[in-house]
């Protein structure tokens, strides 16, 4: 690495640095706020320097952790890891810089910045570790930090902001008296829902370890022959990978565990940005991509070319290549379903950040879909080539994988941009509901501009970054459909053909995306001003510009007209916006880096553009454009062009209102989970009260009490039967000495008898095991 520094510094710095944050806070508040940014800045430089070394890492650092289980700590420095590390560290850095200003007036920043930095460190641990177990530890660090950060404002005593046109929830679990309660609930919910996935994942990891005998990714690919066949033979292959994928579903908010992310908005905006753009939700995508690589590269080794290929292929063919396609079908379908499902939810949401959360879920669905399609294409490719001898059919799975990773990058940038910008908006006008916003175009010109850039990228409008990556994912889902047709038309059999489904879903999701993106912009920035900001004498000249709301102005700030935030918040926004615009110029480099090719920059760029108009690419491209028009034109007309008129798109009754309500309730999935939880708690309560109050002291949260109760009873035995006599005397102590003596005589007899009794039991045990009794 740069200056010959050891590689592990990249994760040790933020993790250890996070512990420093409270210490620094003792000396200087300002320095403390900047500590995460500084440490992550250094880490970022180190991560960038890795880019030069992906070809021949000069020794992956390792230290032996548990020698006799062969658990070593190794850094994994392949292109995927390095790209993820660069992305995570860079975005974290920008977000930490933003936080210095955004959080400047909050209490308890020790905790905040500690958790933020540890969060980034957890992500770096995950992506750079070659060891599944240590990666899982990083995964759990993130889980814990997300819990702490989402519920960060746990102390707000004011009642939660009333949503205009609120949904009435009858469920007692969804009633919150204070904002702090709501925030804590959201944090706990995120923790528990992701924990469901994690529990499955840990099971999967241990299963995998049982068969592979290693936690190391690279050893897993190397010893591929040793475990793949065995696991496939007893049918454990798909269950194991599905278990691990459950973890990814939880973390990346895929259906059906998508419910936690919309509520995760309760935390400060920089937290949302960190969770959505740089860390946490990308973890699930990363781990799926990592297993895709492990499986596919191993398959490439064993399928090989030349003479060895035959053997390797037959091995795979016999045992599991067709089974593993089932795994990728699940990945692709879950991705596609999530993409569409959450995009429709986004249409009706009323919270600024929640709309963005739904868009994140939807984009994550695209990434999963891209990975699933890549896996499927890879195995269909082998199937077509080796079994059906369709040598003329050219199937490139790696481009599908590439487009998924590119989408991680472009999404990371534009979603960070959108969140940070909307954080500025919420900061300025003190409401989180879009229906209370409006007309901000005039007051927050800079935020308005960068927000548009982010929105266009999110919607997938060329030439912004989102277009290139999302459109190519759609393209590869189209190719999947074509390949499936080819294979079936040449007499091949497929497990199930899903190409048309994922293609249809991804196109529809694109239409929904552009619709809600325009709705977001229209409601927030266009139309008449809805909140009554009393802009009075605060000496604040109509903050057309930044920077004058520094520390001294806390009080006035709350009464001023909305205005753009200061430089620490704006500079990261400019950087992200710039990247979003010029991303397509950068993508060729990333492609070369990720696929280890050495093509000319111009050639790839040309290819990227012309593939849209090529014979294979024109159909999906045109369909996508059609979908964009389908969603974009109504969105523009309703929410931007007619923004100044009252919105009558959704009437009070009728089918539109019903659809709207259905979407507002998020397909009732979330409420359904709560309903089940509530029913469970009620029945547990009923059981506790009616059935078994005496013996089992309640099943729900009371189990700890039960244990205590039993313990107390055992203790009672210990106290009264065993040391009873003496204890009695000593509590009514006459004098220390006498009671001491009494204690000795009384209790020791009993102690001794217990020993003798124990000896008897032991002899009995021996006799029983020897078969005498």
């Amino acid at each position, binding site marked *: 690495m740069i200056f010959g520094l*050891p590689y592990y510094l990249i994760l040790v710095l933020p993790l250890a640095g996070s512990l420093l944050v409270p210490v620094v806070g003792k000396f200087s508040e300002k320095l403390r706020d900047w500590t995460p940014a500084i440490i992550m800045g250094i880490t970022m430089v180190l991560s960038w320097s890795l880019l030069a070394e992906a070809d021949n890492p000069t020794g992956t*650092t*390792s*230290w*032996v*952790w*548990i*020698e*006799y*289980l062969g658990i070593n700590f190794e850094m994994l420095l392949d292109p995927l890891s390095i790209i993820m590390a660069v992305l995570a560290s860079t975005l974290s850095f920008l977000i930490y810089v933003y936080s210095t200003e955004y959080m400047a007036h909050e209490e308890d920043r020790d905790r905040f910045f500690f958790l933020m930095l540890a969060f980034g460190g957890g992500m770096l641990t995950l992506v750079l570790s070659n060891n599944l177990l240590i990666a899982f*530890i990083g995964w*759990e660090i993130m889980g814990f930090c997300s819990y702490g950060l989402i519920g960060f404002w746990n102390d707000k005593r004011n009642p939660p902001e009333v949503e205009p046109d609120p949904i009435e929830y009858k469920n007692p679990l969804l009633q919150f008296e204070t904002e702090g309660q709501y925030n804590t609930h959201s944090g706990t919910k995120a923790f528990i829902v992701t924990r469901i996935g994690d529990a499955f994942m840990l099971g999967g990891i241990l299963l995998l370890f049982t068969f592979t005998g290693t936690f190391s990714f690279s050893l897993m690919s190397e010893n591929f022959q040793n475990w793949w066949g065995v696991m496939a033979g007893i049918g454990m292959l798909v269950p194991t990978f599905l278990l691990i994928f459950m973890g990814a579903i939880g973390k990346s908010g895929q259906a059906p565990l998508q419910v936690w992310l919309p509520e995760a908005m309760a935390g400060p905006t920089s937290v949302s940005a960190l969770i959505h753009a740089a860390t946490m939700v990308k973890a699930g995508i990363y781990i799926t991509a990592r297993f895709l690589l492990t499986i596919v590269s191993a398959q490439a080794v064993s399928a090989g070319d030349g003479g060895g290929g035959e053997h390797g292929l037959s091995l795979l063919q016999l045992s599991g290549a067709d089974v593993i396609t089932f795994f990728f079908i699940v990945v692709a379908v879950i991705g596609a379903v999530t993409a569409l499902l959450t995009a429709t939810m986004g249409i009706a949401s009323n919270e600024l950040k929640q709309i963005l959360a739904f868009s994140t879920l939807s984009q994550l669905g695209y990434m999963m879909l891209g990975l699933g399609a890549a896996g499927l294409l890879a195995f269909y490719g082998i199937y077509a080539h080796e079994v059906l001898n369709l040598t003329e059919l050219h199937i490139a799975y790696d481009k599908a994988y590439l487009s998924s990773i590119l989408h991680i990058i472009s999404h990371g940038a534009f979603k960070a941009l959108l969140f940070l910008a909307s954080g500025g908006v919420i900061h300025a006008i003190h409401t989180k509901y879009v229906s209370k916003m409006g007309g901000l175009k005039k007051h927050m010109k800079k935020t308005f501009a960068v927000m548009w850039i982010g929105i266009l990228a999110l919607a997938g409008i060329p030439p912004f970054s989102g277009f290139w990556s999302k459109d190519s994912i759609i393209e590869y889902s189209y190719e999947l459909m074509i390949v499936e047709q080819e294979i079936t038309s040449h007499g091949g059999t497929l497990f199930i053909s899903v190409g048309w489904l994922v293609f249809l879903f991804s196109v529809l999701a694109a239409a929904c995306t552009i619709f809600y993106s325009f709705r977001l912009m229209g409601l927030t920035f266009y139309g008449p001003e809805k909140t009554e900001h009393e802009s009075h004498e605060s000496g604040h000249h109509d903050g057309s510009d930044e920077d004058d709301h520094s520390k001294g102005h806390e009080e006035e700030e709350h009464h001023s007209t909305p205005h753009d935030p200061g430089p620490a918040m704006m500079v990261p926004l400019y950087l992200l916006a710039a990247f979003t615009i010029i991303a397509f110029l950068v993508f060729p480099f990333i492609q070369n880096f990720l696929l280890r090719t050495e093509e000319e920059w111009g050639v790839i760029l040309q290819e990227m553009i012309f593939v849209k108009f090529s014979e294979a690419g024109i159909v999906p491209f045109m369909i996508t454009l059609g979908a964009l028009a389908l969603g974009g034109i109504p969105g523009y007309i309703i929410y931007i062009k007619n923004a100044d008129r009252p919105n009558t798109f959704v009437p009070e009754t009728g089918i539109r209102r019903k659809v709207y309500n259905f979407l507002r309730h998020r397909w009732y999935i979330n409420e359904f989970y709560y309903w089940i939880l509530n029913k469970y708690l009620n029945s547990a309560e009923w059981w506790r009260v009616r059935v078994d109050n005496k013996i089992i002291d309640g099943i729900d949260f009371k189990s*700890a009490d039960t*244990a*205590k109760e*039993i*313990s*107390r009873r*055992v*203790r009672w035995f*210990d106290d009264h039967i*065993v040391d009873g006599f003496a204890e009695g005397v000593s509590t009514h102590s006459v004098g*220390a*000495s006498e009671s*001491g003596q009494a*204690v*000795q005589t009384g*209790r*020791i007899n009993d*102690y*001794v008898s*217990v*020993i003798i*009794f*124990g*000896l008897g*039991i*032991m*002899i009995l*045990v*021996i006799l*029983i*095991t*020897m078969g005498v009794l």
Partner: protein
Amino acid sequence: MIQSNIFTDILAAMLVPLRDVLVQLPADWYGSIPVLTLILFSILSLIIGLRYNPLPVSIIGVILAILEVAALDSSTYGVSFGGLFVRDAFADFFIYLVLLVAILVMISATQYGGDKGPYNFLFLISFAGAIWVVMATDLVALFMAWELMSTPTYILVALSPDRLGLDGATKYFVMGLISTIFMLFGIALVFGALGTTVIAEVGVGVAAIWAAPASLESQAYTLLLAMALFVIAFGFKIGIFPGWMWVPDTYAAADGSVTAYLAGATKKTGISALARILLVGFIAARFEWYPLIVVIAILTMVIGNFLALAQKDILKMLAFSSIAMMGYVFVGFAVDTQFAISAAFFLAFIHAIMKTGAFVLVFAMSIKLQKRITYEQLNGLSVRHPLAAAFLAIIMISLMGIPFTAGFTPKFVLFMSTVEVGLWWLGLFAFLNVTFSLGYYFRVVRAMYFRTASEEGPLSLPRIPVSIVGICAILVLVLFWFPAPITNLANAAAALLIP
């Protein structure tokens, strides 16, 4: 990473002059030189203690003993007194453990307010006995060393600053007496059946009897009775079923340093003695003693955890929790593979560090506040004394067995090893117990960090206990990432017992 070889090489080079001096002594003493040093310094402390504070002398003695252990390579200079006491890899592991606890205890003993001469004398004598216990290869030598170690601790417990100490000491003494009787009886039975008391020869004899069970049935029963007696006799010191009951009374009554020594060191010598007897002497009878150990492990875990949960007194809670912890160690014995044994030893080592720190700190608090420490007294400690709270929290987290603290690693390996030999249900049971134990460890953390203090203002604690718990906390953190020095020793020790 860190090239630890360089450091060890430098250290070894620095110790060469010391070794050159030591080898001038009679060759028959070599293995026991650290013990003899401790005995010499104990007498010196007693004499100096008549007029002055003997603490520096005692600490020098312990440090000298440590240096001697490091200087004299056990493979070359291990044997002493005609093979009665032998330093091998197994003994070395426990010697380092005992001496680590010893130095921490001696530092913490500066807090003791009573007559320091006898106090230090007794401590050093007991250290010497403890080292001999782990070195003994003969049952009679083991018995003598055991008494040399135990007798001073009875008095040390009685020297507690408050009168309760007498109560604790008496219980401890009577129980110790009974276990001694059992031990003697066991030795006599072994000698009667086999005609030898050398543990290795006992192993050979047992194997011979087990090879021809039919004709030698009565001897087999005699030996099994002896084995059960040994388990009780040594188990009493470890605090396992059925001899656990003195533990909370005595631990809560004795001086903090003494409790730390009892929990940290003498407990572990019991483990080492049992390991030698079971794994060397009675290895042929493995299938007879393993169900016994399973039953003991289960009962010990359950008793420890259940009783710990109901405790309000932190010292007693810690005492019960170390009972539970010994149950986990015995899971390792029940599994009886090299991995499991080495993990059990590693757990014993980590446990020594954690408990030393915890006992010293809590006792210092109880002296300071002049009352028993319950959860209420710990409320808001994070505000009143942030450093102590942080250290205690680290130790509690380690006791829970949560990653990033050394408590996690051995438990993890232990549970993996139960699966390996098909005792997964035992592993699962132990895991459930660990989960259960979160209940009372977490209460400590919760009290310190999430409760507000009943009394305002900072709590000033003496520096020495806080720094000792600090050392322990840092060790616990460091040993998670770099367990190699200890695991290597533990592996070597286990490899010696189970080749």
